[in-house]
């Protein structure tokens, strides 16, 4: 198991969130949408210009910018 940044994840890769290192408005928004420690995610796809990224979490699809994904660390299988 290795911990990587959400930005580095590939399409269809799955993982578990280990940390969200941001407070304030963005941090709150991420957490409200279900991005919390321990949540399972899978990358669904990326927009035509590679940004934003779409991921599946808690049974729905969420999209966020790469600059926002930077704050999220994910544990993935090797």
């Amino acid at each position, binding site marked *: 198991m290795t911990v990587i940044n959400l930005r580095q994840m590939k399409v269809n890769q*799955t993982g578990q969130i280990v940390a*969200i290192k941001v*407070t304030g*408005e*963005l*941090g*709150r*928004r*991420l*957490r*409200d*949408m*279900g991005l*919390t*420690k*321990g*949540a399972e995610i*899978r990358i*669904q*796809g*990326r*927009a*035509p*210009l*590679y*940004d*934003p990224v*779409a991921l*599946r979490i*808690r*049974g*729905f*699809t*969420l*999209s*966020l*910018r790469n600059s*926002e994904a930077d704050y999220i660390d994910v544990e993935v299988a090797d």
Partner: protein
Amino acid sequence: MGKPLKGGSIALAGNPNAGKTTLFNSLTGARQHVGNYPGVTVEKKEGYIDVNGTELHIVDLPGTYSLTAYSEDEVVARDFLAESKPGAVINIVDAANLERNLYLTVQLLELGIPVCIALNMIDTADSMGITIDSRKLSTLMQVPVVPMIARTGKGKKEIVAEAYRLEKELDGRRDFHISYGEDLDHVLIEMESLIKENNFMTDLYPGRWVGIKYLENDEQILSKGDELNGDISNKLIAMVEKVSRHLESTLDTYPEALIADYRYGYIGSILKQDVIQRKFSPDRLLISDRIDRVVTNRFIGPLIMLGIIYGLYQFTFSYSEIPIGWFESFFGWLNDFVSSILPDGLLKSMIVSGIIDGVGGVLGFVPLIMFMFFGIAILEDSGYLARVAYMLDRVFSMFGLHGNSVMAFIVSGGIAGGCAVPGVMASRTLKSPKERLATLLTVPFMNCGAKLPIMALLVGAFFGENKAMMMFIITMIAWGGALLTAKFLRVTIIAGPPTPFVMELPPYRLPTFKGLFIHTWERTWQYIKKAGTVILGISILLWALMTFPNLSESEVQKFASQRQALKSNAAATVLQELDRAGENETVELSPAAVDLAARLRTIDSREGEAVLKNSVAGRMGRSLESVSKHAGFDWRTNIALVGGFAAKEVVVSTLGTAYSLGDVDPENSNSLSDTLKKAANWSPLVALSLIIFTIFYSPCFVTVIAIIKESGSWKWGAFSMIFNTTLAFTLSVLVYQIGSFAGLLSG
């Protein structure tokens, strides 16, 4: 049956895309009213329903994922719940997406209001292999749960009955709390007792809730608390700081994060107790995902998007032509009718040229707006609009805008030939206030349908060989200008960090017709109401500017005697022939009569020119000449541009009048084009300068009104007029001066 008794009020809350609007429409039908929450531009929908002869007041809260102070919508929903204290909340949740939907439910319960859960879309959940034991959910959370399908109305009666019962029985208060772990629970007890002892905001919120908000660092509650009692507020902040330090050193986390973790933990623990049964793995690709594989594909996605946008365009601008034609014929008929019954004079001129033409011109937009809103409602309700935002966010965010800005730009004429009024209104799909403001201030730069005749005239007259190329360049200039201006605004007066994009891509759904129609009608009616009243006043004002002061007696006399001279020189038979033909253009005339008619028209046109030149607008045009000559514009162009503020269509017809050509049909302006080409003070350079000016100068006043309404302040309307005109003039002067200096395009 008498009038129903007045009952209490019920609020409808839920996540976006959970079917809240569908339920609201189905509950209230036509008995709804759309207004605004005080001080903000968030829509407030209210309605009434009868339950056993009692009239319940229902308020549809904005769709939110949470009750933090993240967006205006959330603050509005929270304030309403705390201040108006509805008797019960119907919390509509998406059964297929229960986990995240219950996050809001937990927060509603924490606010202490009786909640009943409408477990919506159980059919969709079922088709995805998800079964929910609603009884178990109800027992575990201790709230009533009603399974339902809002789209078909199944479960509607039951949920209303449940809300009604709650509203009667529980008298507005209900205790609910979940554990936030040892550290936070401990400090929350201390905070709660401090809060309760001092009645610190307890008239509005439960004590524990205030404590949680302090832990969450909620700006709104912190500033409210500080205002109310700085002392207590500081004590609470000190408690939060202490526990924060402790959490950071022991768990490497902070209160806000821990609170969210525990809320999801609580939800997870409930769902795990056999509330949810899944037939398939949650990772299974859903139909929506399969559609997305194609629709947001790197290569095919943008092509499909172009196709859909083009389709929306075709739909809006082609099909609305027919009803617009009806409006035009109606106002044309009204114009003729009023002209025929009123005697010639100022009153007639004001009613016909001022009121009917002005208001008619504006109401003429109504079908266009309806079609556009209908098209956008389809894209929005189906879930596609979120994909457009997803695909284009990268481009728009570079300029300080948002993926959702794209629709407003396209509708305003991003491809050529839209309209900025619905464009400004389309910016409603943006939830982030700063990006929204930057969008609605820059969309008027797009080449709307009314600017096109001006462009066509100038390009046709001066750049005839490269028409298509020139139109393409004009479109590019408009886009470049709009995006750069947006960037400029976002680093100056509307500066601020980008609003987080973090957006749900909702599953694709078939929109309901009822929803689409209510959506469309609501927005259209708001336009008619707001625009209709102001426009009447401004139409009269503009008419007066272009009419007064009248020509002097002697001037009028001069034109009359010229006419008289022509007529007395003509043969009696020719005069009789003209009299008989009257306005009827189909009558075949003798060459002598045709000649006389033409001469008479020339005099009319000259008189028209003289009236215009003498009017306030004409004087403004002439006095502006000393300034406008730096951009290459003479007084005639100036008047036309002043008239263009009423509606850009007016530019071409006013130029026609100013050049003594009588009424020029904007769609067929060959005579004007020839006149301009021959005029000594016109050159391709002047034309280019005017093209630039037309793209960027003040939006027409209907757009300005739309901007005022959508931004919530007249200041932004005034700003768009002044800023845009200044920008336009600066660019035009630059083009004209550099061009003149370098001797380019001098014709």
